[in-house]
């Protein structure tokens, strides 16, 4: 199914974008909104993301990564560019960790994913905060180290551990719900 979608994407089939939108727009919009902090800018970023995906679909190499990862990297970089060109202040990006952590329990979450949401909430705060910073707020690992005052080596270890925890919790969630 996804193989067909990839072929259509590589052929610049506009309907492939429509299918991608169905599958990923919510997850991408959630990430982008956290980076740009403005619904108007987030919508423009998401529009630019899908247009770029359509234009560059032929360059997607399934051997190098999942479709969502490819789309997410386009979306995140477009969002970060938007924060640089839309007179965003760095201070907006460097909100306190408390706010970032608090916001991770945001109020606009899709009800469809409430089950997963609870799983995410079970993550230790220090891991969740780190994933939020790097995954949602566009920080590099070096910037995250600077922001948190944690050595870069520890950041790498914690990020690795945090993603491992995610894998475990999602795995148990999926087993439980199946």
């Amino acid at each position: 199914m996804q193989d067909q979608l990839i072929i259509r994407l590589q052929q610049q089939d506009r309907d492939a974008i429509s299918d991608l939108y169905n599958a990923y727009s919510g997850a991408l919009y959630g990430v982008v909104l956290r980076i740009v902090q403005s619904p108007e800018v987030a919508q423009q970023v998401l529009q630019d993301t899908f247009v770029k995906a359509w234009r560059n679909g032929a360059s997607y190499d399934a051997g190098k990564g999942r479709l969502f990862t490819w789309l997410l990297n386009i979306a995140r970089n477009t969002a970060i560019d938007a924060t640089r060109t839309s007179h965003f202040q760095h201070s907006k990006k460097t909100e306190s960790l408390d706010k970032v952590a608090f916001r991770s329990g945001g109020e606009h979450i899709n009800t469809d994913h409430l089950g997963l949401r609870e799983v995410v909430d079970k993550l230790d705060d220090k891991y969740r905060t780190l994933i939020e910073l790097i995954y949602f707020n566009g920080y590099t690992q070096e910037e995250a180290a600077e922001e948190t005052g944690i050595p870069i080596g520890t950041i790498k270890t914690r990020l690795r551990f945090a993603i491992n925890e995610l894998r475990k919790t999602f795995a148990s969630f999926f087993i439980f719900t199946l």
Partner: protein
Amino acid sequence: MDIQTFIQSGLLESYILGQCTADELVLVERMAVEHPEVRAELESIETALENYATAQAITPPVDLRERIMRSIDAQAASTIPNVGAPVTQPASWPPAPGFMWLLVAALGVLAVYLLFKVNKAQQENAALQTQVATLTAEKNDCATRTQHNERVFALLRDKQNTRRIELEVAANQKVYFYQNTALGETSFDGTGMVSAPAHRYFQLWALMPNNQPPKDLGMFDLNAPEHWQHLDHYKEAIGFAISLEDDPKGHPVPTVVLKADTKFVSG
């Protein structure tokens, strides 16, 4: 490197997040091809992060899809599709290492070229600044000369108010003092001035009424434009004199009076 150590190094997470260096990118992709467990680990990390993002998904406004599709249709109508053609990877996707080296080399050449251009521009700028300084000096000199000439013409043309005193400093060698109280001008035309004896200097004087001491009008200036000197104006002056002094800066009172006269004639 031991595969487990490599997997646990944190590099795979960086790769998925698009935060690898070009060298790390090559390494991860090579390891993923050579070691299925690395490939599996990458997929596992991607899936975990995808699930994480999906868990926090937010539904965009309902009209966004329509806006995106309209934008794509508009671009499709105005551009030739890229199907089948090699396409540049989007900025978000880590570029291929060969491309990176090409980019670095191109940037290097560009940097050298720009450095050359900047140096050349700096040299041209310095030359232009010198030229501007020269032209400015010439312009100021011209302005001074013009002002000088205008004062001379104004004095000579005003026949009604200009009067002069003629001093014959040697046989057929005459100099003139001009006075115009309406314009407040006193001038000296030294075209006919003779050379001073060695170590002697000519000083100019205004003769004052009622036995007052003469007023110093300065030294005769050999280099004055057209030998014409604008002097201090004393409207009460009744005549003019030239003295010979041994000090190039002159004396407060005349030492040896060479010539003096009080007979004014018009213009």
